[in-house]
């Protein structure tokens, strides 16, 4: 029974009843509404995370100043700001936007289904996610303030209120993260099951658009890696609130255990957010190069291989934590190995561009920027993966700049690429291309000006998580302070340019050109229905798939694209 079509599929799906605004937009089970909820919640959290970055960068560039909109930053507030900046950007921005928002919006549309398989679990997933965000935000206002033990939450700092000074904040932070995990487990099971079972007639596994494969692989990676950390979080919670000593070496526990539990999840997590961004880029490039995606199957199997390999590299975060040096050798080798498949994927993307008829619309600019910037992040990772070099670089701003050169392309560039590309489908109107390009250059240039100076500072020995560098004469030389000011000013400029994006969104929603069904002349199934798609997505007639998703500029055809659902 490879392709069973239930008789109910023939039945009309037109029962339309008017629902109130609250039911329709806040408690909807429609995958498109839930996607928007995730998208807007993620972007709102992104603004909070960006505000935190602004506050602590101001403190670093101008120590002790009264930061506009915040005030003087105390040392404890500084710790809390950097901790929650990291946690928010990964758990409440990158994951909800890249996986949950795009996954929810695209999976049913791209496979020709009317919804996810479990719409109510989908709604529950968002509700739990929303509560987790509220718990996190609440943690800033309890006694002692928000948790300040870094997003990695290493014990004993995180396990003992006597060290962290945040008796409630640490626990609320942990609860918020755990709830977020539950939300994404529910969502991930829904995604994987939907893609496996609900593909429309004719859609074989190699006809699935790459972005869906990437979201699914990411969901599976998340599911397989987060378990030990959930167990670890329960143990950390017990240490905080019940008084056990799982992570206390003086009482028979082991702080290294947490580091292992955390990074066994934490490293695959990098690929959990990377792969969806890679998939978005893979779906955008063929459309704007008017050329078939180069080596579809190679990308797919490379992504799966990367996923498996990502489970074997975690301890490269712990080279100086006192781990067994022989294990450090093993993890150096696996870490350097994993750069091969990722480099291969970047080459494949460049090969897709080769000989294409390239259009530099805003989504394409973001996609190209993703590859260019991510390469810098990947190459600097080589130094950190080698245990010898890492002893010097560990916990410096070099590490920080490295992972911002990976996470910024993933979470920010990937999101903007996806939003600008699918905006016509989501809202039915085109975005303004000129404003889009102003926003693009206003983001990319300051981004490099923030983090290239931080690479230099890191290589000069500037350590992370220091509140005030003027206390350290070696780190307070005038040229170093100048670079810090340059980074901070660039950040402010970059944040200011985000206003262009929000202006563009609002203006386009109101006055934008009507998009029509398929403004980009793209092949995949979501472009065969109305923009925005109606409830039920495809009306009475579900599309049938006849070919892979990237048949552009086919020699036998007059038009340069060939939608998946056309019989010939």
């Amino acid at each position: 029974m490879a392709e069973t079509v239930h008789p109910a599929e023939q039945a009309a799906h037109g029962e339309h009843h008017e629902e109130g605004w609250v039911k329709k937009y806040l408690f909807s089970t429609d995958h498109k509404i839930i996607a928007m909820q995730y998208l807007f919640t993620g972007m709102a959290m992104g603004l909070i995370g960006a505000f935190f970055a602004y506050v602590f960068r101001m403190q670093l560039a101008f120590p002790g100043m009264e930061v506009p909109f915040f005030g003087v930053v105390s040392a404890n507030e500084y710790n809390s700001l950097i901790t929650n900046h990291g946690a928010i950007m990964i758990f409440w921005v990158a994951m909800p936007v890249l996986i949950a928002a795009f996954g929810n919006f695209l999976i049913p549309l791209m496979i020709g289904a009317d919804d996810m398989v479990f719409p109510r679990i989908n709604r529950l997933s968002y509700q739990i996610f929303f509560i987790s965000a509220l718990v996190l935000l609440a943690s800033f206002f309890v006694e002692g303030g928000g948790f300040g033990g870094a997003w990695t939450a290493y014990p004993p700092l995180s396990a003992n209120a006597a060290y962290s000074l945040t008796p409630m904040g640490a626990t609320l932070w942990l609860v918020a993260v755990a709830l977020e995990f539950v939300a994404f487990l529910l969502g991930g099971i829904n995604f994987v099951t939907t893609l496996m079972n609900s593909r429309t007639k004719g859609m074989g596994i190699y006809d699935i658009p790459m972005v869906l494969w990437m979201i699914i692989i990411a969901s599976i990676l998340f599911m397989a890696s987060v378990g030990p950390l959930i167990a670890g979080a329960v143990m950390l919670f017990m240490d905080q609130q019940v008084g056990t000593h799982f992570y206390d070496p003086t009482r028979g526990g082991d702080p290294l255990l947490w580091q292992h539990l955390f990074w066994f999840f934490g490293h695959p997590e990098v690929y959990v957010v990377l792969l969806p961004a890679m998939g978005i880029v893979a779906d955008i490039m063929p459309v704007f190069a008017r050329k078939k995606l180069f080596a579809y199957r190679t990308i797919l199997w490379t992504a799966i291989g990367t996923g498996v390999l990502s489970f074997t590299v975690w301890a490269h975060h712990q080279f100086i934590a006192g781990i067994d040096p022989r294990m450090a050798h093993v993890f150096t080798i696996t870490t350097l190995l994993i750069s091969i498949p990722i480099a291969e994927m970047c080459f494949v993307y460049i090969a897709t561009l080769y000989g294409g008829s390239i259009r530099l619309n805003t989504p394409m600019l973001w996609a190209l920027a993703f590859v260019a910037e991510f390469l810098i992040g990947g190459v600097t990772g080589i130094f950190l993966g080698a245990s010898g070099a890492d002893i010097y670089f560990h916990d410096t701003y070099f590490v920080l700049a490295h992972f911002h050169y990976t996470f910024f392309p993933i979470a920010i560039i990937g999101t903007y690429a996806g939003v600008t590309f699918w905006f016509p489908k989501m809202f039915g109107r085109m975005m303004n291309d000129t404003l889009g390009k102003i926003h693009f250059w206003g983001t990319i240039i300051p981004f490099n000006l923030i983090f290239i100076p931080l690479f230099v500072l890191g290589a000069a020995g500037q350590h992370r998580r220091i509140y005030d560098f003027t206390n350290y004469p070696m780190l307070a030389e005038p040229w170093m302070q100048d670079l810090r000011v340059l980074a901070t000013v660039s950040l402010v400029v970059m944040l200011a340019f985000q206003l262009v994006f929000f202006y563009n969104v609002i203006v386009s929603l109101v006055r934008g050109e009507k998009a029509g069904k398929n403004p980009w002349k793209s092949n995949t199934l979501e472009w065969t229905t109305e923009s925005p798609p109606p409830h039920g997505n495809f009306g009475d007639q579900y599309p049938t798939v006849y070919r892979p998703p990237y048949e552009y500029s086919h020699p036998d055809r007059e038009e340069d694209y060939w939608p998946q659902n056309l019989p010939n």
Partner: protein
Amino acid sequence: MSSAARPIANLRSATGIPTGRLAVWWVVASEIVIFGGILASYIMFRLAHDAWTVQAANTNTTIGAINTFVLLTSSLFAVLGHANAVDGNGKRAAFFLRLTALGGAIFIAIKSYEWYTEISHGFTITSNTFWSFYYTAAGLHALHVIAGAVILLLIARDAAKNLELHRVELIGIYWHFVDIVWIFLFPLLYIAK
């Protein structure tokens, strides 16, 4: 929750496995790594700390064995419920599901008595890291038993009216998984002394 409200996506089956069952297998997969994480941590600690043998000698093997018996038997009832659901006999399926839930309740009752005895003898969750693991791992498992029993009763209510009979198998798979976790917890916490 009539099946008419279900999306068409839910009714397709490109893999040949019914959607609900496929999802339950993914739930089990994600649970394997949760319990795997805590049990792997426990085993490492246990192998490294010979001194824990002294603590482990205080666990009650008899009670552990009785609880294993209770869970194994409840698993039998769950699978008999499934067999009846396949034959379309919702009433009997519901009867067996309720027996399964009763097994879960007895398990929890015995567990409560056991913990009460141990705590009153001074073996609390903070007295030693062995006991921390003992209470945390078994407690995490007990939470799964309680959740499973509640779901069993909810499904039994529908099954008695011959509704949603395919769910009988789904909760069964989950319940057997919880049983398997206990099958490993039993030797780890009780027998190995």
